[in-house]
């Protein structure tokens, strides 16, 4: 697995359990499709200057069962547009997890993360050792390795490129079987 390590600051900590991600852009804005507009609305209730503070590569941190409820895609589309490179949470709600992994958006399940970081700490996520290093504090914590197919989907950049890669591999296997058979 050749996943690129994530390196960035903790741009925000959502400490509410069962956090409904739709709140990030507000439910009344959930049908907006223009990502620029979504990005302007994002995080208004939490930190109105968020867009100005965030840098490409920054990460979000969440509490337990992050993404519970009926998650939609626009909030994290807006976050990616602002440069957010991934989400690390104590644990994730499966629907949200699947949805964002299928977008190729890295999600890291890490029990203990809330006690491990302060806002704006610099983190490094290492997919080979399954650890997160808090560069600011000089500490390390282990995270739960994702299922193989999820890791491959992140690496491929989302569901469709992942499935295309699989289809190509299958064709290759069939091709070599055919050669052997002949």
């Amino acid at each position, binding site marked *: 697995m050749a996943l690129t390590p994530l390196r960035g600051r903790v741009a925000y900590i959502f400490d509410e*359990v*069962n956090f*409904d991600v*739709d709140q990030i852009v*507000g*439910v*009344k804005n*959930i049908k907006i499709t223009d990502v620029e507009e979504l990005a302007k609305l994002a995080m208004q209730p939490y930190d109105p200057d968020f867009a100005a503070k965030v840098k490409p590569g920054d990460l979000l941190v969440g509490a*337990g*069962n992050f993404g*519970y*409820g*009926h998650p939609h895609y626009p909030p994290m589309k807006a976050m990616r547009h602002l440069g957010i490179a991934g989400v690390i949470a104590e*644990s*994730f*709600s*499966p*629907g949200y997890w*699947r*949805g964002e*992994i*299928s977008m190729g958006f890295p999600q890291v399940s890490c029990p203990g993360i809330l006690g491990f970081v302060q806002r704006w700490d610099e983190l490094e996520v290492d997919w080979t050792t399954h650890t997160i290093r808090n560069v600011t504090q000089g500490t390390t914590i282990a995270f739960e390795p994702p*299922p*193989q*197919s999820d890791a491959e989907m992140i690496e491929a950049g989302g*569901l*469709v490129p992942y*499935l*295309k890669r*699989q*289809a190509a591999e*299958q064709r290759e296997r069939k091709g070599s079987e055919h050669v052997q058979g002949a």
Partner: protein
Amino acid sequence: MGYTITEKILARAAGLPAVRAGQDIKAKPDFVLAYDFPGYTDVYFKTMKEDFGIERVAEPERFGIFIDHMVPTATAKEEELHINTRTWCAENNVPLFERRGIGHQVACEVGYATPGAFAVHFDGHVSQLGTFGTLAIGLRRNVLEAFVSDTVSLRVPHTVRVNLHGSLRPGVMARDVFHHLVRVLGPSSCRFQVLEIGGPAAAAMSTEGLQTITGLAMFTGALTAIVNPDPVRLDYALPRARKRLDPVSSDPDAEYSAVHEVDLSALEPIVVVPPTPADTRDLTDFLGLDIQAGYLGSCASGRLEDMRVAARILGGRQVKGGVSLHIIPTSQELMAAAAREGLISTLVEAGAFVSSPSCDYCFGRIATMTANQRAVSTGTLNVRGRMGSPDSEIYLCNAAVVAASAIEGRIADPRPYL
């Protein structure tokens, strides 16, 4: 150590002698289900052709497509989506179930709930097929994998076993049981796992009640829910089954990540207060809150026992002026049965608006609520904006509470009416 029903079903679907929870596998779904919805089926059909060069599906009998949202259509664009779906199904020879009712219920009626089968959908409420010993998982967009290849990649889930005990008191329904489980076990208790329902109270429960409980499993964090099918469920499911499979059940020594014994004999009616399905409370603490809307329907509720209790409460009474009560049977089969029993006339005479099956009431496409309105609802969900304005409120409850509240124009206790 024995195997869970989930492990047995997935072992067969993966073509392996055995699998264990935690194992990453590729499994071939017996059934691939979907309802047409913008951004889902239209995208799959296009992606299959354009990105994967698939003009026709190889085994059309494995598929099942439902038209249950945007029924009836309100715009030309919605009708175009349905036309696209009809065309794809006809070209591919894939079974299409249009206007028969909410797909998850219709799927049970037409035999996709084959005991022992593995089914996938994008929508997680498909879990209700678990009532009949079918492992049915909602994969969100990842269900595309099942449209473009034979198999889906997944990690075999662990199982949380819940044994239900005791009998329900009057006015308490399966709907209360499910939300009670969320309350006592927690909204993340079954995260990424299967919720396996058993015990004497599950065996005694109606099939409709089990469909309610299994259909809502996602709000415990579960990937799906399943029941080891007993003769009652098999009598329903086997004659309808679309595939010849041996029903399977968990071994007595199967390994569970947790086993919970839940006594239902003291359970009281509940409400789930907005804006999250995680917040189960006692009905009695919310009595008297004024309401403007009532909804009895959805894939979770809206079956015969729900309509029966509503008819019993509403019979000879009237819905209060200013309250919109919508009663939408889950499927045409159920609606026809309700008509034969005389339930429909009772509900209509009481002032309920009764309409043919549709998903649209549950997500506010019709009967849309405006700011500062409040509903009692048997819909699936109470998040902000689910039934219209983000500033409206949805209190989830059982069908009896909806009926009693519609009479009084405020959240009401159904028990005095029973």
